[in-house]
């Protein structure tokens, strides 16, 4: 089986909404979430998708 898409990491400013089963980065502010998201996007070769104001995921397409 080939996995075409995969969530590589999750960034959140709200710990209550953090998912389980993958790497979660807890951020203090939206600015910090965007900064870490930019770094992870480059490192992981993925795309940062904003799911809500509090959750961002890095997905490998």
């Amino acid at each position: 089986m080939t996995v075409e898409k995969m969530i590589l990491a999750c960034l959140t400013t709200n710990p209550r909404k953090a998912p389980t089963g993958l790497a979660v980065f807890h951020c203090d502010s939206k600015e910090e979430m965007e900064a870490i998201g930019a770094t992870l996007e480059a490192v992981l070769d993925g795309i940062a998708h904003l799911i809500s104001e509090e959750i961002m995921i890095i997905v490998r397409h």
Partner: protein
Amino acid sequence: MSVYIYPVLFGIFCGLFTRLIMLRTDYRQYPTYLHGKIVHISLGFIAAVLGSVAVPALIEENITAVTFLTVAASQFREVRNMERNTLKQMDGYELVSRGDTYIEGIALAFESRNYLVIFTSLLTTIAFIFTDIIISLAVMVVCIVIARAMMDGGKIKDICEIEYVKPRFDGAGLYVDNIYIMNIGLPKRQEEILKYGMGFILKPKNFNAMTTIANLGQRQAILYDLSTSLGIFRDSGTPALAPLAKRDLEDGRVGIFVLPQNRDIERAIEIIGNTPTLENAIRLPSKRKKNEGGMGNDG
């Protein structure tokens, strides 16, 4: 000296000349200069020889010699496999890939060009043996015209209207007109996309066109041609800047999103319009008979 030497030489010349005319290195940079060309010219020469010598062999009632043509056919099929494998390997290193449908189309074209060379050599040799040089030259010209006509397929501008639309964001969603392209989470990436991005809408002229441009391979071919001609604002490790083509499910329009280095709108529309409609992508649902039931009769 055999009486067939001049007809055979003439047939080989005509076949090779036809192959050279069909061997164009265009914006896709394929075949590559120079070694790729040598491979195809050599195969064209072999095809021309086979087409030419088949005629004297038949006249001399050497029927078994014609079986050489079947050897040629399997050889040219091998050419198709070679082209397919080469292009697939190269595709992995492209910033925007051609896609398998485009590659299959190119490989098929290379095989079919050799058959056209065989037919040209065959007909010109027949003309030379049974008529004179003037008629033989006329046959050559007709063969070249037919070969060119058969190699020039349809283009996107024949089946679609193309319109420029500036990409926009609605929250994190990237849109071209009302067609959703993708979710871009980082404001920095959104700024880059708004600064460098271009959007186009392909509006199909009929139902057949709608089905053709829905093909993923056809859409990838458009993106590839556009990126090759205008350059691409991206590097490895920046998948968010990859060009995309998405379909409006309501009316079959396709939204194209690209980040070219040369943002000339008129030129981009011209390039999209000149993208070939791929043989493997063409669908003609309107040709289906109204009274045809069941699974249809393919093949």
